[in-house]
């Protein structure tokens, strides 16, 4: 079974970030492999361990995104593809999807694994765009995946539980953090990753046009904040104060 996992490099969610003057995120700050994508890699590795095959990582980003691929390779993935091109700076979801789709198509995978949304963009739009461009069915928000021959079955998270959804592979899935606890890279894995292949491709290599952005940021403002009310220490009377607020709000 050939599995492609899409991996994105994102600003470290645990570090404080700054905005550039043009309102793009300052990407020279600490960056990491998207924690959601780590779960996707883990699921890919578990499926490979159970069914055999290969796990290929595909990322679109600046040269530096090679580190994100390297991290996945040290967890155990087999090889990587890095799509990097100046024309991709500030790419929107559609262009990102086009670039990723072109690289993935050439691999003809049985399964494509993405995270439900990225940590920084959080638009969750790249996976369905990819599925459409690749002509694949999409089983999204998976918290459990089962493969039986060419049949793929997932438990798809819903607002009040989950649904069981199946499709024949090839298919695309998006995984939630509940899918699998990502493994740590072992020292051996880190050593092995150094000699694994990471192929670098440009938009021209892929035959994809840059095109103008589908949307542009016009301005950025601080989000509205609420004013703080009163803060009290619980000296035994706190409950009375809360009850008063509840009564004023007419909920009791």
């Amino acid at each position, binding site marked *: 079974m050939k599995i492609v996992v899409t991996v994105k490099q994102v600003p470290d969610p645990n570090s404080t970030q700054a905005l550039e003057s043009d309102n793009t995120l300052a990407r020279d700050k600490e960056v990491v492999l998207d924690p959601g994508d780590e779960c996707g890699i883990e699921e890919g590795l578990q499926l490979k361990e159970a069914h055999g095959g290969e796990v290929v990582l595909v990322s679109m980003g600046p040269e530096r995104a090679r580190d994100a691929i390297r991290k996945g390779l040290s967890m155990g993935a087999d090889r990587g593809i890095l799509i990097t091109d100046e024309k991709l700076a500030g790419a929107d979801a559609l262009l990102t999807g086009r670039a990723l789709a072109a690289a993935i198509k050439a691999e003809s995978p049985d399964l494509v694994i993405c995270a439900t949304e990225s940590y920084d963009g959080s638009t969750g739009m790249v996976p369905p765009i990819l599925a459409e461009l690749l002509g694949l069915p999409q089983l999204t928000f998976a918290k459990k995946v089962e493969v039986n021959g060419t049949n793929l079955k997932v438990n798809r998270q819903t607002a009040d539980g989950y649904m069981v959804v199946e499709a024949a592979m090839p298919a695309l899935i998006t995984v939630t953090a509940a899918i699998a606890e990502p493994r740590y890279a072992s020292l051996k894995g880190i050593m092995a990753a150094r000699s694994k292949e990471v192929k670098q491709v440009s938009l021209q290599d892929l035959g994809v046009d840059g095109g103008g952005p589908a949307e542009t940021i016009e*301005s950025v403002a601080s989000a509205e904040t609420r004013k703080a009310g009163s803060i009290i220490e619980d000296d035994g009377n706190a409950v009375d104060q809360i009850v008063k607020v509840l009564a004023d709000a*007419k909920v009791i």
Partner: protein
Amino acid sequence: MAKVCVYAELSEGKLNSAVTEIMAKARELGDVSVVALGTGAKEAGATLGKHGAKVAYVKEDKVFDDYLAEPATDVMHALQQQDAYDLILFSFTSDSRDIAGRLAARLGTGLISNASDISAEGGSFVAKVPYFGGAKLASMKANGKPAIVLVRPKSFEASETGGSADVKDAPGSVGDGSKRAHILERVTEASEKVKLEDARVVISGGRGMGGPDNFPLLEDLASALGGAVGASRAVVDAGWVPYSMQVGQTGKSVRPGVYIAVGISGAMQHTVGMKTSKVIIAINKDAEAPIMKIADLGVVGDALKIVPALTAAVKAKKGKS
């Protein structure tokens, strides 16, 4: 007048409440058509007429109940070919997200996701989206046509205007090639008596609750107040409670009369889902926790002591009145 289309998401025959909210905005932006597909479509179309839809395209076919995304994408695509909308609106919910993404790719246009507001500016549409982890709000302009925008639930308040929609058969046909992601079974895990999204009072617990064994304390308070229990992502990821309880950017948005955050630090990704609540009460042992900066009443203390005492006090007060 701009031509606006709203995708009316149905789940097991019921109209998603986010759709009537979106109608409140959509009818300000132009002439609105809605699309309702699957069991319950006709009824949904009638309801949306009362919320300002001029035309309701419906198709009561089980194929939309049984397969994810692709059948609905086929209809939305056919409809766009027929009516050439300027703006297509979806709710930022799982099923609609899947359809909107596929539709954008099929039409070759972009889309704006996770919007909390939309306006028409000089012939194009501008949406407000959280940026920079929610600390900022970006105004994003859609350059293509149609503009496709996904709106966060609870961004607008639903209200009826009266009126009725002209109900029509939705165009397009669903090929066998679109019957792929097959829904076999639906399982409900949430046992809540009151739905989180609709509750007047929401009591949410975070890591400060100490462990899953302490969540019944919140359940007790919720039942005393007739409210629902929510949670932060940290405790959902830790497996203490199901995802259906998560409030925030990647969970539910709520707008209750009173929101009580218990042992929740108040990360931006949490507050984006609850900060429009009318009254916010925070219980946290750390006076410096960010949640204190947006709370109307911040109580510095141990949640495990305060919550049971509060439940008792609420019960006592209710008993008297």
